């Protein structure tokens, strides 16, 4: 399996760096399926009853754990395997992610076949979750090394794929289930098998295409700045030393707060829009609204990450915090004046910044901690996502339920949540304000035994 080694992935003459983003997209578009897993929930409650749920069929609440376990292990595996991904190279990581992702689907198909839910928890939740974590971080540092002139745009393109994966998976899964479903059988297991095989093929193609830049490679016409900008280091910080810096934890909180503010409304957008505008937004229109939000979530990842290359990472997050604060405070007003257009516009911009927060953070880490361990540090940072995945929905759901129980009209039940989200962004603003350059005592020195693999050194530093 030596073809998986980093040394076998060094680009030869004539290789175009523009082949690396599609390689990354091959992986991210596949693992982005996780956002569309809910299309299986309802069919999986009727595996025995077929037309309606039988007493022994699985409940929606039990099925909801599949996605939660997968996202939990995304955070855990990206943190645990980050250094291995960084040192083993992108091809090995992508190949491993492909094996785990396809394996997760095949094991889950078996779980559906024998109608045993814990097998699906292990298959899609645990093994698939590991694939999510490894696959998510696998192309990050490679892209940053290929695009030292546009790191935000490069990682934005890949992470955009994670947001876009659901667009492919959702209609494909519905179509496949329709194909395999008969009057006496729900075709979930067969759909899992086909998806597993198709995703494996796609991800393997990505792992074959991907290359790391050779020693000293720099893009045409690009000269690294002679002096570092105030917040862009030319030094590297060892992965575990990054945890000792206040900058890591400030960025951890910035990501956590930005994602908390977005993830809560993303999950509840359909119900929220219908309850805030009863009679104006129907269930059908609400599903259209959710689709539009997904598009802005994906587009925001590319737009904001690319913008950060021009205005700087810190300023980009200032925009997220300030604009987000204004928009969250405006949402209750749009409800009170009954303006659906203003409501939709507010949430589309908010959700674009939610995606933008994910996509811009690898470049922010690269600016702070250098290129050598940015993938591994990014992996550790993704634990903020797991935390936000709990905070966001809890804030929205429980506060709404509390308000409704205390007699607040449903149309206004989300108002206090919006102000709390705005408050979270104020905290995020001050965290971002506190970010300064990393103290030089954390910089790796020449000959540091922990990072003596020359392949891991940033291209420019090897010139």
């Amino acid at each position, binding site marked *: 399996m030596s073809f998986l080694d980093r040394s076998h992935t060094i680009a030869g*003459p*004539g*290789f*175009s*760096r*523009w*082949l690396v983003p*599609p*390689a990354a*997209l*091959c992986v991210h*578009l596949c693992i982005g399926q996780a956002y569309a897993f809910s299309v299986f929930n309802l069919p999986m409650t009727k595996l025995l009853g077929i037309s309606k749920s039988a007493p022994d069929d699985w409940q929606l609440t039990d099925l909801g754990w599949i996605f939660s376990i997968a996202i939990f292990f995304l955070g855990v595996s990206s943190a645990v395997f980050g250094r291995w991904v960084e040192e083993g190279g992108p091809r090995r990581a992508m190949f491993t992610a492909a094996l785990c992702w396809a394996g997760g689907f095949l094991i889950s198909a078996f779980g559906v076949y024998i109608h045993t839910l814990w097998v699906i928890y292990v298959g899609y939740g645990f093994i698939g979750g590991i694939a999510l974590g490894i696959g998510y971080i696998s192309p990050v540092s490679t892209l940053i090394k290929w695009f030292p002139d546009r790191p935000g745009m490069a990682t934005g393109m890949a992470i955009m*794929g994670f947001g*876009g994966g*659901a*667009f*492919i*998976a*959702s*209609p494909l899964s519905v179509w496949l289930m329709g194909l395999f479903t008969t009057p006496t059988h729900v075709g979930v297991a067969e759909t899992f098998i086909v998806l597993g095989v198709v995703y494996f093929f796609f991800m393997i*193609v990505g792992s074959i*295409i991907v290359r790391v830049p*050779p*020693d*000293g*490679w*720099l*893009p*045409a016409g*690009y000269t690294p700045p002679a002096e570092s900008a105030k917040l862009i280091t030319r030094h590297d910080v060892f992965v575990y030393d990054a945890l000792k810096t206040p900058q890591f934890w400030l960025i951890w909180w910035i990501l956590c707060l930005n994602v908390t503010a977005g993830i809560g409304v993303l999950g509840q957008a359909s119900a929220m829009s219908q309850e805030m505008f009863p009679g104006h*937004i129907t269930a*059908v*229109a*609400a*599903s*259209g*609204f959710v*689709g*539009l939000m*997904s*598009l802005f979530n*994906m587009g925001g990842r590319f737009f904001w990450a690319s913008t950060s290359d021009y205005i700087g990472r810190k300023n980009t997050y200032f925009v997220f915090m300030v604009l987000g604060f204004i928009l969250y405070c405006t949402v209750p007003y749009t409800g009170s004046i009954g303006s659906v257009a203003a409501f*939709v516009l507010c949430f589309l911009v908010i959700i674009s910044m939610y995606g933008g927060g994910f996509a811009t953070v690898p470049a922010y880490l690269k600016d702070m901690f250098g290129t050598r361990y940015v993938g591994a540090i990014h992996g550790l940072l993704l634990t903020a996502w797991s935390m936000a995945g709990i905070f966001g929905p809890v804030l929205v759901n429980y506060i709404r339920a509390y308000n409704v129980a205390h007699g607040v009209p449903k149309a206004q039940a989300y108002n206090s949540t919006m102000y709390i989200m705005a408050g979270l962004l104020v905290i995020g603003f001050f965290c971002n304000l506190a970010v300064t350059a990393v103290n030089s005592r954390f910089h790796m020195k020449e000959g540091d035994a922990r990072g003596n693999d020359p392949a891991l050194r940033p291209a420019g530093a090897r010139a």
Partner: protein
Amino acid sequence: MNAANQQGLPAETVVKLVLAWAFVGIPLLVGVGFTLYNAMKLFQ
């Protein structure tokens, strides 16, 4: 190695670029098309 070789790409590389981007771009565009079609319900 300088990336001057990024300019004037050989035909083989151009073909690879087109194939690679089509490989990921076509499914994504189809998916986005489906989503946009459904999103139009918001304006009906």
